[in-house]
């Protein structure tokens, strides 16, 4: 029986050649890194929770990653998967059984060793409806999930503890994204005794295996992390302490950064100050720019006339002047021509998309039977810059005769309108736009373009449902063999090309990330625009002014 063996991506080929069951080179630690020191990060809003089963915003996402670990993770600053608490894994040829060998001697912050029982407990917990985890659905491919979700079983029958250092997952279908699922926060390992001790307040008293442990949490004021001296990954983390100061407006945070009082403003550079910062060479030198797994788009409700006509949707795609929209956000984005962002595997570099062509757009509208255009509504979130972007799109649409009135609403109201089949003809997704949960092309399909999301309360706001594409998506996701990842990416490219032919969206731009830091912060630039850690990869950065 052929088995796929893997550890770090680089080592996997070697492992196969040597026929070894586990090979794992310890991740390189930056030789220039200095040990010690403390940094300060600011945020406007309170930190919601540090429970990995529950936290689901960009503020706590990265903090949780530093307190907890999962079986899988990504190489710092990249989207390359690597085993983390697992030392190695095996995938059965049918793609339905994953077996993970755990690292020995990993300890929770309370001193107890982490074992396979903890892995099983953590997954049973996150899928249990009583936990109210927003991420429960990610584990839908594990055998027994439906029973747990329906409250008929307490544990996942598909997760088996083979021995204290081996855990086996059986899936109901081959799932190429499963290793990514094991890397998301919802799959992080928690100790049962601490969860039971604190109950619903575990999120305020997090205990994990991560590089940092929680030292202080003063509600509404600050959270302090201190270095986990027993961290299993030798040489990490570099910092002794991270202080998160809460309740600081982004504009105030920037002023404090300029005065040298803080190190990273967690909410980023306020848009109103962006040009000023970038015009000053000294400040600009401390800004790191990177791609982001994000696409901003306009949805068109394919079940509502006249957007049920593909020609109308294509006309809208050709009418929007993306370059001008990007100017509105001070050039903090690149134009998008397909659902996937450029840094996502499966992005089709050859695909050119719809050109900006007003004459052709008008001709398409005429062909669709609307030579004089029509009236419609464009929904948008009411926080800056979204209303301004909506106005630019409104003007572009007016140029081809479409008179769109803008409905500028609170985020929750726009989401509600999008989830109602007769709710919104067009929505500008800004402020709610899709940012991938994990770097895999499938992540941009299911809930936002697949039939599963085209339900009341769903996120498929164009109500686009192409059964043929759904089947192709399922086929692509059953290609589990990591060696065939390239082939699978091509299958996904083809799916998105077809989506663009049907044009349920007009992709507008992919936002870039800009992280500003103090002069004393060190480490490779990609740690400051890490695709899965926002704003920065806390475990790997360091400060230069120690010792």
């Amino acid at each position, binding site marked *: 029986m052929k088995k796929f063996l893997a550890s770090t991506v680089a080592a996997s080929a070697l492992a196969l050649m040597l026929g070894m069951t586990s090979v794992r080179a310890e991740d390189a630690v930056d030789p220039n890194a200095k040990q010690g020191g403390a940094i300060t990060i600011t945020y406007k*809003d*309170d930190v*919601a*929770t540090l*429970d990995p089963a*529950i936290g*689901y915003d960009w503020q706590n996402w990265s903090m949780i990653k530093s307190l907890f670990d999962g079986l899988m993770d990504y190489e710092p600053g990249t989207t390359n998967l690597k085993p983390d608490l697992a030392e190695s894994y095996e995938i059965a040829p049918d793609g339905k059984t994953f077996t993970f060998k755990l690292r020995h001697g990993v300890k929770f912050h309370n001193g107890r060793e982490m074992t396979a029982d903890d892995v099983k407990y953590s997954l049973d917990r996150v899928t249990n*409806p*009583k936990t*109210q*985890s*927003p*991420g*429960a*659905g*990610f584990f*839908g491919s594990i055998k027994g999930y439906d029973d747990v*979700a*329906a409250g008929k079983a307490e544990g996942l029958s598909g997760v088996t503890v083979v021995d204290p250092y081996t855990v086996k997952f059986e899936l109901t279908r081959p799932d190429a994204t499963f290793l990514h699922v094991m890397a998301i926060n919802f799959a992080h390992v928690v100790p049962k005794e601490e969860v039971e001790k604190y109950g*619903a*307040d575990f*999120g*305020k008293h997090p205990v994990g295996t991560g590089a940092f442990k929680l030292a202080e949490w*003063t*509600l*509404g*004021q600050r959270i302090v992390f201190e270095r986990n001296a027993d961290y299993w990954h030798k040489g990490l983390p570099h910092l002794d302490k991270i202080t998160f*100061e*809460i*309740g*600081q*407006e982004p504009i*105030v945070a920037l*002023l*404090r950064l300029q*005065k040298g*009082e803080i190190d990273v403003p967690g909410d980023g550079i306020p848009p109103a100050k962006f040009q000023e910062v970038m015009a000053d060479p000294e400040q600009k030198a401390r800004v790191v720019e990177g791609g982001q797994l994000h696409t901003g788009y306009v949805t068109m409700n394919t079940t509502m006339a006249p957007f049920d006509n593909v020609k109308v949707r294509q006309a809208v795609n050709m009418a929007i002047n993306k370059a001008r929209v990007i100017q509105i956000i001070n050039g903090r984005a690149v134009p998008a021509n397909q659902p996937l962002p450029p840094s996502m595997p499966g992005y089709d570099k050859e695909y050119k998309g719809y050109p900006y062509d007003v004459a052709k757009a008008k001709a398409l509208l005429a062909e669709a039977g609307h030579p004089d255009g029509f009236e419609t509504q464009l929904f948008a979130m009411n926080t800056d810059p979204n209303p301004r972007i909506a106005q630019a799109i409104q003007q572009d649409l007016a140029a081809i005769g479409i008179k769109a009135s803008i409905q500028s609403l*609170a*985020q*929750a*109201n726009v*989401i*509600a*309108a999008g*989830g109602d089949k007769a709710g919104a003809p067009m929505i500008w997704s800004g402020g*709610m736009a*899709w940012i991938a*949960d994990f770097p895999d092309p499938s992540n941009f399909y299911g*809930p936002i373009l697949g039939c*599963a999301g085209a*339900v009341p*309360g*769903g*996120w498929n706001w164009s109500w686009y449902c192409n059964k043929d594409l759904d089947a192709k998506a399922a086929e692509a996701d059953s290609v589990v063999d990591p060696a065939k990842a390239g082939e699978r990416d091509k299958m996904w490219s083809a799916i998105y090309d077809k989506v663009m032919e049907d044009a349920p969206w007009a992709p507008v731009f992919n936002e870039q990330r800009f992280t500003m830091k103090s002069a004393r912060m060190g480490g490779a630039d990609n740690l400051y625009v890490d695709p899965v850690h926002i704003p920065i990869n806390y475990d790997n950065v360091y400060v230069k002014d120690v010792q």
Partner: protein
Amino acid sequence: MIAYLGRRLIQSLLILLGVSLITFALLYLLPADPVRQIAGRSATPQTVENIRQQLGLDQPFVVQYWRYLTKLVSGDLGRSYIQRSEVTELIVSRLPASLLLMVGAILCELLLGLSMGLIAAVRRGTATDQTLMVASFVGVSAPQFVVGLLLLYVFAVRLSWFPIGGYGTWRHLVLPSLTMGILGAGWYARMMRSSMIDVLRQDYVRTARAKGLARRAIIFRHALPNAILPVIAMIGIDIGIFMGGIVVVESVFGWPGIGQLAWQAIQRVDIPIIMGVTLVSAFAIVLGNLVADIIAPFIDPRIKLR
């Protein structure tokens, strides 16, 4: 007196009940679905339904409201949807900061407002009077958001006299208190001025003047104590204006009080926190008014409690 107190207490309870019902109903009618906010964008419809059931949000309005009320009676404000902590804990941890800001703001507004009103009354009809009254008008009308940012820019960023936002020392307290105080100072200046003018017209002041007392002594010994009392009685009522102001001022200055908590909760449709802060604010306002009414007859014997 006791009958009066009993009646006022029952009235206050009814007001609080009304506030809770109206707020609960408004939040219920909101087109936003809190469950989808909690569940996030990747949740399956099943996850969404599970969470809705867990939170009891699948129940009809009357059932939800009744459940809320019965818990409220035992002091349980529920758990935040987003932060997943006890609302009582969140509010209690933030109340001291808000109370401190309130004390600071009241000090600022009394100090500024009373002295402005006093000077204006004494210099009635002069350019000083007019300037002060225009200033008080500006103070009353200026948006606190703008005042806050201006003070922050001038005194914290440019002059570095005070820290740029935050909480902890008395220096952190100055600018937010001043921002809140400027609004109240405007009101107090106007009230103090008219109250003082009233008093200065009284016979006993004329008598004092006829006795040949010094102007300073007349104003500070005879007129001021009488003019100031009705103004002080307004502090209780002031709490209402204060509760509105903290939402803005605490957000601008990063002051960790319940105003900031409310503002964050509103943005995230975190209904239990919105309800909790609304009720606590309503309670403070009702209490302030009650106290103001009860102490009024002690200050001014012409007022009788009935």
